[in-house]
């Protein structure tokens, strides 16, 4: 799903750029999410919606909701309205398998989607866009398929329920009803429009041009006749990072013309790189991110050496001025992954007022991340090829709403 940075045309540093290929802030600063929401035309996820989620699911909202990681949406309130009336929905998310190495930023949408699956008791389809990576990253077909399977193992290790989850790779699944929908969508998007939305040019090969429908149609239940036969009105909710918005703006534009419901979206901000807020983590720079294959030693090292600190240069200055929480990466990471709200508040207070030192915060973060990565590794070890086959088998899911 996430397509990578293209060596871009003119990305004016005077404007922030957010699209599936590139994410960069204005003048090398921070991403202005308010401006982004304005520009894209989506909605802020406010407290009232989060409370509603709590009421409807009878459990504490996920840490990503509480901390504003998932902060924007389109039609999420309509999904909740329908749910309240007893009308279910299904989840759709995906991954572009460009590399074997997954970092924590990659896991975020999956961790959140797992929570949504459990909390709302709804089924999930996960798309592995091996075709996209084959085209954009110039991988061989076999390599991209292999990466798709490898990534599937990490995804499964996040804890999805096999009786409610269908994972598919484009190379395996495109065809039949799925392809019929792709053609229907393609007919509704002119070349000019596609070039406008995605920045394609006359130099791009036609494979790229024809890809967007592939990512669009999993939003329509009729693309999965083995899962949702006769349920053409089933709504779809797509958890994704906000840079994927263009794909789904296009989809939402097309849906009514095909007589389909528009998919709803719930969008996250970007997980900052270890070195600081400027942009996303990059799979090509091993020190910009914590990988799921990192050992406890690696994690400790990376955090101590590379995590950008908002603390002051000297202990005295720090005690006097406190830390700059705006730019401090360890605190940012803790706000993503430290479950306990009061503990986080305590850390922010003490650190922000200079009583806690950077070393302590980093130590806590190392603990939290090591535990997470360890747990992921254990689960990953239990994922066999057979289990991947089971998740990817085109089979009905009779208990998908239980």
């Amino acid at each position, binding site marked *: 799903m996430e397509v990578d940075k293209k060596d871009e045309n003119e990305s004016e540093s005077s404007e922030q750029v957010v699209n599936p290929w590139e994410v960069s802030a204005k003048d090398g600063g921070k991403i202005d999410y308010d401006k982004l929401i304005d520009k894209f035309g989506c909605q802020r996820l406010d407290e009232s919606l989060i409370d509603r989620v709590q009421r409807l699911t009878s459990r504490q909202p996920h840490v990503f909701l509480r901390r504003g990681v998932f902060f924007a949406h389109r039609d999420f309130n309509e999904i909740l309205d329908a749910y309240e009336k007893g009308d279910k929905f299904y989840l759709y998310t995906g991954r572009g398998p460009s590399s074997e190495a997954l970092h924590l930023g990659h896991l975020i949408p999956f961790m959140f989607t797992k929570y949504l699956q459990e909390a709302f008791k709804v089924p999930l389809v996960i798309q592995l866009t091996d075709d996209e990576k084959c085209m954009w990253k110039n991988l061989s077909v076999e390599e991209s398929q292999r990466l798709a399977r490898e990534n599937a193992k990490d995804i499964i290790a996040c804890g999805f329920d096999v009786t409610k989850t269908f994972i598919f790779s484009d190379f395996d699944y495109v065809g039949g009803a799925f392809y019929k929908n792709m053609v229907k969508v393609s007919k509704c998007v002119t070349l000019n429009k596609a070039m406008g939305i995605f920045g394609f040019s006359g130099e791009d090969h036609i494979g790229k041009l024809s890809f967007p429908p592939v990512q669009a149609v999993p939003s329509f239940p009729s693309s999965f006749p083995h899962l949702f036969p006769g349920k053409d009105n089933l709504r779809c909710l797509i958890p994704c990072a906000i840079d994927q918005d263009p794909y789904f703006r296009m989809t939402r534009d097309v849906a009514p013309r095909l007589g389909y419901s528009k998919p709803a979206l719930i969008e996250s901000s970007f997980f900052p790189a270890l070195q600081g807020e400027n942009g996303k983590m990059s799979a090509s720079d091993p020190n910009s991110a914590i990988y799921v294959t990192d050992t406890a*030693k690696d994690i400790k090292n990376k955090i101590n050496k590379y995590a950008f600190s908002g603390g002051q240069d000297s202990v005295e200055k720090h005690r006097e001025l406190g830390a700059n929480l705006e730019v401090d990466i360890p605190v940012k990471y803790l706000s993503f992954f430290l479950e306990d709200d009061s503990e986080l508040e305590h850390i922010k207070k003490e650190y922000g007022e200079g009583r806690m030192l950077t070393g302590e915060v980093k130590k806590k973060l190392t603990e939290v991340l090591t535990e997470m990565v360890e747990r992921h590794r254990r689960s990953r070890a*239990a994922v066999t090829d057979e289990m991947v086959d089971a998740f990817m088998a085109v089979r009905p899911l009779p208990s998908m709403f239980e």
Partner: protein
Amino acid sequence: MGFSKDQLLNRLQELEIDYTKYEHPPVLTVEAQAKYVSSSEGALSKNLFFKDKKHRYYIVSAMVDTKVDMKVLSQRLGLGKGGVRMAPEEALAQLLQVSLGCVTPFAVVNESARDVSLLLDQNFKNQKRCIFHPLSNEVSVSLNTSGLDKFLKSIERDPVYVDLEANPAVGKDQPPDLAVYVPSNSVVIPEITSETSTKQTPPPKSVSAEVKPVASAKPSKPASKGKSVVVENSTLLAFKNPEKFVEEIMDKTSALLLSEAKGENVEALAETRRKLLTSELTHLAIMFKNTAYTEGFHAGKHSQPKRL
């Protein structure tokens, strides 16, 4: 019924896999084979069939020059340093349905070998062609790894290529890198007396009958060598084995209750600990469920239609 050489070769032809066949007197060793098939035809392979203490079986197929250290392999599989030994002859006959000197990757075509893990030398990939016995030691075939892969995929096996000479450290922070290739099921072969506890084994039928693997055989307490590797294993077992599953739950819950009883926890902290525990246990339960479903899926895929 074990696959015959002819059936295998037919299948290769059906799949349009390009291979060259060499017939020769029966050979039991690579040296003997080398007399009849020259290295210009392709890279000869040495094939090892071994098992671990929990009756799980493995075929390792490697280039003749590749050094295969069984101790290292055993560790990389998460079985501790001395966790493997060569498989007995009966296993060769009953699981792989080939004769002595004839171990070959192709043997996994047999239903009886479905739980045998196949590890291939990644050096094969650099070769134009590699040479294996097609279920008979009177014949050798040379083919490219892509052909072998195609064949394996046709029998729903994922080709697994491994750097057999690598010797990565295995410890607390470095889990055994090949542990994922340990078969999920152990196999009970009738007539093996050795140290294993004999269970209700089906009366030995003629060679052609399938040996039904005893799925989820209660594993004996893992040996305490290589502590860290064992921890990895027992967690994996918790995903498959109901007893281990419950043990994990009991362990974790009692740790929490004990610390609460000792008054180590303030109210709020206890609340968080409970939540964390709930989330951890739910995760454990999901993996357990997924594993069970996968075993059922496997059974479904391989179940034979009712005989009319």
